Every structure is written in C-alpha cells, then in structure tokens.
C-alpha cells in the first residue's frame, strides 16, 4: 500500500513528472515484479534456513504482487486507454510486450481469487497445482519488462537472472541438496 500512497501524494503534489500516469504505470509494474520475485524466494529461503514461519508470509506477498499488477493494469487500461476495450485488445494483439503482460496478469487472477482459507480447503491438493501458475506468470512478467524497455536492459536481465535462480532452486536435485546442506551439520541426513 505504501508505494500507492506515495504515488497518490506525488500525483496531487505534481511531483511525478509531466506524464504522471506513465510514472504510475512504471513504478507499479516494478513493484508487481519485485513482490512476485519475493514470493518465489520464500520457499528456497525457507529450505535453506529452515525458517518455516516464512511460509505464512508467502500468501500475503503474492497478494501484494497481484495488487500492484492490478494498479499497473488499471492505470494503463483506465487512464491511458480510457477502458477502450478495442484499443486494449489491439494492443494485446499487436504488441508482444502487452501480450506477455496481459497473460501474466490473467494468470495471477485465479491465484488471487483462491487465496482465501476457504478456497485452500475446498481445493485441497488441487490448490497447490493451481498455484504453480505463478511460475509462468513470473516468467511472462519478466518477459513483458524485457520487451518494453528501449535501451537499457540491465534491470530486465537482472530480473530474469533472479527468476532463473529462484526456479533452479526448485529443481529436485538442487532442492534436496539445499535441505541436506542445512541438515548435515546437525548430522541428521548424510
């Protein structure tokens, strides 16, 4: 919420530059990606440190990511495009960075919608399966960022690297080693 409040104050004070909506879209897009990648970092960090209480933060971080992605989208669709459905659909069709971004957002919608306790219970094992959609969503988000920038690809590539590391940490081979690395000092598992 804090970044949004910051942007709202900035908008009223006129300190967001000449095209404040562009600034809002940019900043909110960044926050969405930051929270998405942070969400994906929870499990590897938990495995590495054994700090299991971290898992509880995951759902909230995921919701933050969705929240910023939604503000990012609404600033674009509502203010830039005045909710012009045709113009938006043309964008989705013609501009690959928007195609990727829109796909990422759509993948996040069911995840946000099923983030309540009730849905977790109702879906049972299927809930975990459904929430694996976060991986393609994050990949599409990073791709969206990479395709959007004009000159400086430093940050999109850094985001891609972070994503690659976080996904690699999930491969069974690496994951088991991360666990073992943690346990071995205590001599539990060879």
């Amino acid at each position, binding site marked *: 919420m804090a970044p949004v409040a910051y942007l709202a104050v900035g908008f009223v004070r006129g300190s967001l*530059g*000449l*095209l404040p909506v562009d600034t809002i879209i940019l900043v909110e897009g960044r926050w969405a990606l930051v929270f998405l990648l942070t969400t994906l970092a929870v499990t590897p960090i938990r495995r590495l440190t054994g700090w299991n209480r971290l898992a509880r933060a995951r759902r909230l971080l995921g919701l933050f990511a969705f929240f910023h992605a939604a503000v990012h989208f609404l600033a674009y669709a509502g203010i830039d495009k005045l909710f012009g459905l045709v113009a938006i659909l043309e964008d989705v069709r*013609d*501009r690959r960075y928007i195609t990727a971004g829109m796909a990422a957002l759509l993948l996040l919608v069911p995840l946000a919608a099923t983030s309540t306790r009730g849905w977790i219970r109702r879906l049972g094992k299927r809930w975990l399966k459904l929430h694996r959609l976060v991986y393609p969503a994050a990949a599409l988000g990073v791709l969206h960022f990479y395709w*959007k920038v004009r*000159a*400086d690809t*430093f940050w999109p590539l850094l985001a891609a690297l972070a994503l690659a590391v976080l996904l690699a940490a999930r491969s069974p081979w690496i994951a088991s080693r991360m666990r073992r690395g943690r346990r071995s000092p205590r001599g539990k598992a060879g």
Partner: protein
Amino acid sequence: MVIRVRRSSEVPSSEITPESTYLDRRKFLGATAGIGAATFLGRGVAAEEAPIHGEEEPNSWEEITTHNNFYEFGLGNEDPSRNAHTLVAKPWTVRVDGLCAKPGDYALEDFIRPSALEDRVYRLRCVEGWSMVIPWRGFPLADVIRRAEVEPRARYVAFETLWDPDQMPERRWKPRIGWPYREGLRLDEALHPLSFLVVGLYGKTLPNQNGAPLRLVVPWKYGFKSIKSIVRMSFVRDQPRTTWSSDSPREYGFYSNVNPEVRHPRWSQETEKRIDGSRLFGYRRIDTQFLNGYADEVAHLYEGMDLRKHF
C-alpha cells in the same frame, strides 16, 4: 532582415505563453531585426519578430526544460534536467569537415555570427508518443551549409553530439555503435528552410538539458533526429550511421519522419500525448499528423519513396 513566408502548417507563435521574459522581449521587436548570434549569446534577448497568429499554444518553459531525452545525462525523462548542469557549454567549438571547401574548427560565436537569429515555434513529436510546441530561437541550417561550400559529391550531413564522460554521467547504457550520439540528414533535407539550428528557447540561451549550446531541430521528424549539443558536422557521400537506427534497425529508420501510418513495432504512432499542464493527467491525446503537420512544405522531398520501407 530575413523575410519569412509563413506556411499554412507552421505552428504560429501567437499569444506567446505566460513567460514574462518572453513577453518583455516584444519591447525590442521591430527595432532589432536580425541581431547577430554572438550578441544573443552574450547578452540574452533581441531577435527579429516572430510572426503572430493564433492557434497552438507553446508549452511552458518548465515543461520544455524538465521533460527531455538526452541519454548521456540519464535514461529517464527527468534525468537531463537534474544532471545536465555538468555540461560545459562555453567555450564551444564546432568542427565542420568532410566534402566541403571550407572545413575548420569554429568557435561557436564565429559559427553563428553571420546568421540572423529568428524565433520559430515548432511542434516536436517524440518517437515515444508525446509531443510539445516549442518556441525556439536559431537560424537555418542551410546558412551553415552554404557557407561551408559543399562539394557536389556530398549527399548527406552527419552530426555528432559531444561525448565527454567527465561531463556526462550515463554509465550503464551505451549505444551499439558507441558514443558519441550520431545523427544525419540527406543534404536536401538539411537544406530545407524548416531545418533549424537552435541556440535559444523562449528568447533565452538554450538550457543544457535541451542541447546547449547548439542543437538541430527538424520538426517533421521524430525528436531523436534533432541532435543536441553538436560538436561536429560532416558532409559525406554515403548515408551515415546514426545512433538509434544502428541500435535497433527494426524500430528506428534513418529517415524517421513522423508518420501515423507507420507504426513503431512496439506502439502505434497514430496519436500522441500533447503535454498540457491544464489537464488532470498532464496531457491531451491528439491525432498525429503526417510529417508532423509539415507535409505541405516537405512531402516533396520524399516523392516516389516507399515511406513504409524508408521509415
């Protein structure tokens, strides 16, 4: 005095803005036509009268000087106004070389002294999709080309921006063909009376972030063609390599004429955000005009060319 014929599509320089200094300037008008550029650089104000009509309102000094693209000073639109104070715009030397009878290194004052300064209000359309209306002060590029006595073999003019890492903080990004920033025009484009070398804005010395002390303004092309802080002009036979068209040839062509029909691969060019501080979101969306509204004057330059291919 340079007599200017106003063309229908030019932005009239009308009820010039809330800028008080600019309004003050009008006291001089009539009496001080065609004051030499060196005088302008030294003291500030006088130039010949800008024709008065009423239509498109120029953007404010504040708008024009805080929203720029000058990548040597950072990649964000607000970076140049924060960072460009490190640019040393005086003294300044312009090198003229290549296929001409009078090459040489000219002190800026000598370079522009022979020309009469004019005020012109031009639309500026950025390839990113925003636009402004800007009251420039300068002189025709053609003046300089004529003085250089260009050889008939020369078909293009290549321009270079200053590149001095000590003055320019951008560290992370470098164009594919490296610094300095390069641009170019076909000689007939460069000789066109609308092609303008600029030394001032709103009757004042050009601020660093806008390309001090000498920049090009080619109003029918996307803004990045209007190269800033020029240190070199070369007359050449072959089409010169330019920064953006070398960096992403799929997205930016050598010509880069404003054209709503030819989309940028990542966004449409059919409309633009005209910066407008009176609007809630800071702009109003307007239709982009072919050749930025200067088609009557310059369309003949491109007769018979496929502008989709030569974008």
